[in-house]
């Protein structure tokens, strides 16, 4: 064999090997993509050993249902070493994490709805409202709904309203059935229920709602008490009355004794 030929042979073999290797690697990736359940199981086994709290939230989440496990969002930061000691898992930006699935490619297209919203305009992102592990809503301990975290004044009005009494909440109008993340109210928002004034009347007259609406405040009282700013208490140091009485008795006693008492001790004596 001529040297050129053998070179070709080696190059060809290498190419073949490379292609083969690439195929194997790719297939391995496809495997992990088409068999997420196993990957999820593996993740759970590994991650759960330490990270119980996030795992507990994840266990009952939509992500869990669809086998979106830890490593889908948490990527191993590229640094040498092994996980707990040196290498760490991190989450990159929302574009490369949430929007991979919930982006414009998906059928929900949450991303573009969100982008069109006022929420996006003031800088909010997915995790502003969604707890990332449970994908539930981030309701602060002093709020009733996630909206109330920020829209406190609106919520104060809302709980006084007929809508609230009828069992509706913010999202009924602002998102609608389609869970529109742009939060916009469209022309059909009102007319969906109030097709005409008479029907509105009928709805008012219909059973449960009527009772609820007869006394909307009754429902209001069932929700956690409004966080009223504490009425400014009368400040100062509050001492019980007996302290003043005691001070009075001491001072009065000394004064009375000074006026009516006897001279203390015996008269002036020279030192012996």
């Amino acid at each position, binding site marked *: 064999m001529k040297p050129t030929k053998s070179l070709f042979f080696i190059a060809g073999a290498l190419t073949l090997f490379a292609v083969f290797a690439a195929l194997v690697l790719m297939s391995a990736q496809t495997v992990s993509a088409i068999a997420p359940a196993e990957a999820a199981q593996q993740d759970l086994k590994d991650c759960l050993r330490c990270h119980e709290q996030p795992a507990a939230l994840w266990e009952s989440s939509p992500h869990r249902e669809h086998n979106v496990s830890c490593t889908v969002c948490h990527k191993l930061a590229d640094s040498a070493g092994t996980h707990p000691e040196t290498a760490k898992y991190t989450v990159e930006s929302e574009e490369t994490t949430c929007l991979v699935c919930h982006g414009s490619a998906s059928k929900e297209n949450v991303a573009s709805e969100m982008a069109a919203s006022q929420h996006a305009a003031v800088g909010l992102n997915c995790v502003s409202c969604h707890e990332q592990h449970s994908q539930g809503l981030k309701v602060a301990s002093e709020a009733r709904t996630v909206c109330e975290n920020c829209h406190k004044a609106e919520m104060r009005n809302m709980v006084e309203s007929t809508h609230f009494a009828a069992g509706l909440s913010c999202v009924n109008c602002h998102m609608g059935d389609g869970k529109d993340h742009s939060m916009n109210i469209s022309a059909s928002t009102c007319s969906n229920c109030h097709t005409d004034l008479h029907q509105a009347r009928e709805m008012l007259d219909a059973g449960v709602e009527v009772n609820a609406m007869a006394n909307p405040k009754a429902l209001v009282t069932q929700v956690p008490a409004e966080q009223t700013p504490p009425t*400014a*208490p*009368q*400040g*100062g*140091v*509050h*001492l*019980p009355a007996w302290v003043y009485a005691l001070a009075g008795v001491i*001072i009065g006693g*000394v*004064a009375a*004794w*000074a006026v009516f*008492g*006897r*001279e*203390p*001790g*015996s008269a*002036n*004596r*020279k*030192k*012996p």
Partner: protein
Amino acid sequence: MQTTIHRPKLQIGKHNVDIFPYWVGLLVAGLLFGLVGAFTVLRDGLQVTGLSNRVPWGLWISIDLSSIAMGGSAFVFGVIVYLLRLKRFETIGKLAVLLGFLGYSTAGMVLLFDLGQPLRFWHPVVFWQPHSLLWEVTMCVVLYLTVLVAEMAPIIVEHPFFTDHPLYKKFPVVKKAASAARTIAHWLHKAGPALAIIGLTLSLLHQASLGATYSVISGRGVWFNQSAPVQFVLSAMSGGTALLFFLGVIVFRVMRPGTVEDSALYDVARLSGGVTLLLTYLRLWDWAVTNYYSFDRNISLQTEALNAVAPYSLSFWIGQALLPIIAGSVLLAAKSIKNFRYLMAFAVIPIFAAILMRWNYNFSGLIAAPTYAPFTPTIIVNSYAPTWVEFSVAALVISYWLLMFSLAIRYLPLKAENER
């Protein structure tokens, strides 16, 4: 030579009752009640008090400041006896040392309960932070208490109660220990003048830094006051000396007649009167400087707020200006008044004025606190109501003070050196 100690008796019908056991019984009851509170606070922590993040210092700190003020006569008489060598005050000086010891040990005790971590009370002694005024106060109190103990020790160790005790005779070990203690006491006693001077420095230093503790807190308006250290020293002198006079009459005229000349007692009263007038003069200037010659928005807002919730200005004008002027003048004229009843009654005023001043000082910056709002600085009025635990611990330390004092004046030989 043994002085006869007269015991105050109460005439009930035909019986002549020694009230001492009943008095001690009452104090022991107070101690027991106090121990309940002390136990509660040590077990449950400071949540059982009425203190909060907004008013973190309360009744106990006021008691602490006041009891240190009540020990203020110790350093005054340290000067008089050891530096000026006025022999006729030596016996009174012993009583002053006793009052100093009681005042400082009471303060230490109540501070212990006020700490969030009482077991770490020794930390300031080991972990130094000399920038801190509180550190300085703590160190001074610790060192000064040591000095006072050293000054007290000879009186106690040489007491016949110990030397004549049956146990003492039975066990040679005890005897040896006691004689060792006596040697030390004797040695300390020799160092008396030096101790007194050290004590004087420490005491002056920290009476002043108690005031400075508050006056360096620039964020709280009324506290940020440069004359506070001087005011604290003078009020401790005036209140402490007035207390010394009051108790001195009881001890040296009623219980041990003949040990001290009346004229010496009059001089104590005059000293107290003089310092009271000086303090009042300074207070008035201080008032003028902060309220009249300058205007600080925070201070005026704070004063306004305090006046709305308490008779703050009134307590100043009556309790710390008018009455002390009267009392100071009367006490200053002790020699011509020559009526112990009147003098004692007026001596109560500087005592209460010193307590009132510390009370007001402690609470004024806490109750009316400036806020950090950037454009519309306002004053928040906080409130504080002491709980029973705080009163109970207060009862503990006050009972301790009274009990120790009662036992000491009944049993200890408070005598000048040359009379031993």
